[in-house]
């Protein structure tokens, strides 16, 4: 029998699929939709069965079932309760049985503190008026790039030569997610939404499919250690170039797109042989120091004739402030800080769950350090990694960010249920897969509309919050920590975040 258990490799299922046989009309839609082999139809018995061990809890079957016969729920832990060993038993078993280290995806899912939820925003009452964004102008426009130390305005004209800037209608961009990690239609949707909303999407490190060159003007191209798909045309199509040093979900290690995901089109876009592993080395081998980073930044500026801002993306790690200072001095125009809750298409679990720093803390210390050194104007700061809602955006900007990247939130907008199976390439929602049968489940028309809706709603929410604070331009919120108060934080945490406790 196909679903016979194998005692040697048995680990208890994480989910249980409950099926109401009375409601089930044997349409087999769930069988067809499940890409994880967790559902199958037995012709002899005319019944649909589930193989719970394979279920990843993506909820695709429940969503598709026309008679609502299916409920997927988390399985209760089967072992005797043990606070100390909870979760580690299966983890040890898997390593012992399969002889490999588990690879996971999306962001860190451990219960670390979420500082966003310990910060409250201010509002105007009596002493200064709040502003109604529905009836009064409210400015979200943001420019990313190096700002001059001073402006020379004479004869009614600006004489200072400005460094190249990225112009954003809203301070939210789509984070680097590569074609390879994501399906073609998802990239298409991100590109269309970025164009419509006057913002940018990031190509990620996997190069750019020729079809997506049409989004020129709304693309940030990424250069990572593997240099996949990096060539003259690619650099030219980007409005900015982002050097990826690190990623919040996997600081200090390289990328690894497994050979089975390197299909013909991926091989074409990445410009590497089909079927071989796409290995991104852990470091850029031409960058072993800040001086070397400067060399790479200027190599990219030379290659694009100083017409584009160059961003450097780093994972938030212990010395993030000092590193950022170095990056600013190395000539970067934008620093992207990727917090430890940032997502990934694949990362070893131990790395994702144990390395890095919270974005909130990193933002605060980097902004403070650059201000103290008098070089904050050298760079714009983009906050990335675990931005879940519009208020995270507002708080990030108040802590010192110029703009934010959203990745996971954008995927959720187009259907992701965060089952964390991106690394398998089997995404049942058609998002993180290269299987043409699965990827056609994402309709770029509907998905781009949903992304536009999300950004428009967030923009409205940001404006309403700003209005409540009596602020009519996002510029006035930037680094404005007086509008933040901490709750449930200790004195040291408040000091590092640079905010006052509630009541003070």
């Amino acid at each position, binding site marked *: 029998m196909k679903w016979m258990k194998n005692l040697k490799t048995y680990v208890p299922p*994480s989910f249980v699929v409950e099926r109401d046989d009375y409601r089930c009309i044997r349409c087999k839609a769930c069988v067809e939709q499940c890409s994880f082999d967790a559902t199958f139809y037995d012709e002899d018995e005319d019944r649909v069965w589930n193989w719970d061990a394979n279920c990843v809890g993506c909820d695709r079957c429940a969503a598709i079932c026309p008679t609502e016969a299916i409920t997927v729920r988390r399985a209760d832990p089967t072992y005797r309760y043990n606070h100390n060993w909870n979760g580690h038993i*299966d*983890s040890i078993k*898997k*390593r012992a049985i*399969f*002889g*490999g*280290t*588990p*690879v*996971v*995806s999306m962001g860190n899912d451990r219960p670390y503190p979420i500082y966003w939820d310990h910060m409250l925003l201010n509002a105007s009452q009596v002493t200064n008026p709040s502003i109604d964004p529905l009836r009064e102008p409210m400015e979200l426009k943001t420019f990313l790039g190096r700002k001059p130390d001073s402006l020379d305005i004479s004869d009614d004209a600006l004489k200072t030569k400005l460094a190249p800037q990225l112009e954003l209608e809203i301070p939210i961009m789509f984070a680097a997610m590569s074609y390879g990690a994501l399906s073609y239609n998802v990239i298409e949707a991100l590109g269309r939404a970025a164009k419509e909303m006057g913002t940018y999407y990031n190509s990620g490190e996997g190069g750019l499919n020729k079809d997506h060159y049409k989004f020129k003007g709304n693309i940030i191209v990424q250069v990572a*250690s*593997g*240099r996949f798909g*990096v*060539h*003259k045309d690619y*650099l030219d199509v980007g409005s900015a170039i982002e050097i990826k040093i690190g990623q919040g979900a996997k600081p200090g290690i390289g990328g*690894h797109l*497994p*050979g089975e995901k390197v299909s013909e089109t991926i*091989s*074409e876009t*990445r*410009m*590497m*042989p089909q*079927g*071989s*592993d796409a*290995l991104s*080395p852990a470091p850029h*081998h*031409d960058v072993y120091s800040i001086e070397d980073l400067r*060399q790479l930044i*200027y*190599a*990219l500026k*030379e*290659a*694009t*004739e100083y017409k584009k801002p160059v961003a450097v993306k780093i994972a938030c790690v212990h010395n993030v402030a000092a590193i950022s200072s170095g990056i600013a001095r190395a000539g970067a125009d934008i620093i992207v800080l990727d917090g430890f809750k940032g997502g990934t298409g694949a990362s*070893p*679990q131990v790395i994702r769950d144990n390395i890095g720093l919270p974005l909130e803390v990193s933002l605060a210390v980097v902004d403070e350090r650059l201000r103290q050194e008098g070089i904050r104007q050298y760079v714009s700061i983009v906050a990335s990694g675990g931005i879940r809602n519009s208020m995270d955006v507002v708080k990030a900007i108040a802590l010192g960010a110029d703009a934010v990247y959203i990745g996971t939130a954008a995927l959720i907008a187009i259907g992701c249920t965060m089952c*964390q*199976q991106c*690394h*398998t390439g089997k995404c049942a929602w058609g998002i993180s897969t290269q299987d043409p049968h699965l990827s056609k489940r994402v309709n770029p028309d509907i998905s781009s509309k949903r992304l536009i809706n999300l950004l428009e709603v967030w923009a409205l929410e940001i404006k309403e919050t700003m209005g409540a604070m009596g602020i009519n331009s996002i510029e006035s919120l930037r680094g404005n920590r007086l509008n933040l108060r901490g709750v449930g934080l200790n004195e040291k945490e408040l000091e590092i975040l640079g905010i006052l406790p509630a009541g003070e």
Partner: protein
Amino acid sequence: MYEIDAKGVYYRDLNERVRKAIREHHKDIVLHNVCGQYYIGCGLNDRDVKLTINGVPGNDLGAFMNGPTIIVNDDAQDGIGNTMNGGKIVVYGNAGDVVAYSMRGGKIFIEKDVGYRACIHMKAYKEMNPTVVIGGCSGAFMGEYMAGGTLILLGLTKRDDKPLTGIYLATGMHGGKIFIRGSVDERMLWSEAVIVSPTKEEMKKVKSEVKEFCNLFKIDYNKVMDEEFVKVAPKSTRPYGHLYIPGP
């Protein structure tokens, strides 16, 4: 011929002058008195342009380049041919570290020795197939992460007391071919590559590249080909696949 005196010229101005010369349709550009200026030829696209450099160019020579030919009549520094996509670089001397990092197309010929990490993560795709010929010896980590392309090491400068390549040769190699004239000490290899004999077909390619090399540097072809070649090949296109399992 369009000549530029690079003496004391800041790299940014020098490269702008080169770009300007190309915009004015000069095809044969000669730079005199070059002394460490960075990024010469960086990002240039024009296939019929020839840049001759008299002096020692600085780091990242020909980075992201896609077309021109660069002749260096002296030694070169680090990072030449970085992420190069097409064109040709010929160095009449030695080159520094990270030669041809992530190179994807075109050719590089180096008369003498190279430093550490030569040709790492070189890759190939369809008609794109980069070739690097090094006349001398190399430092450690040569061909690390190599995913495609051809690297030929001739060892013409080899001294008896020194090895031909450094240690960690071809670590993480998962594609491409390395041909080495003479023999390689197996201890230099890490676990992802093996030493085998090249096939007749492969030797044809080696011979044609060596011929071009010998013509460029006026070296006796027959003498070079007198010695046997060995090939360093990857064991697998997926060297690390077995280390990872799908997580929860």
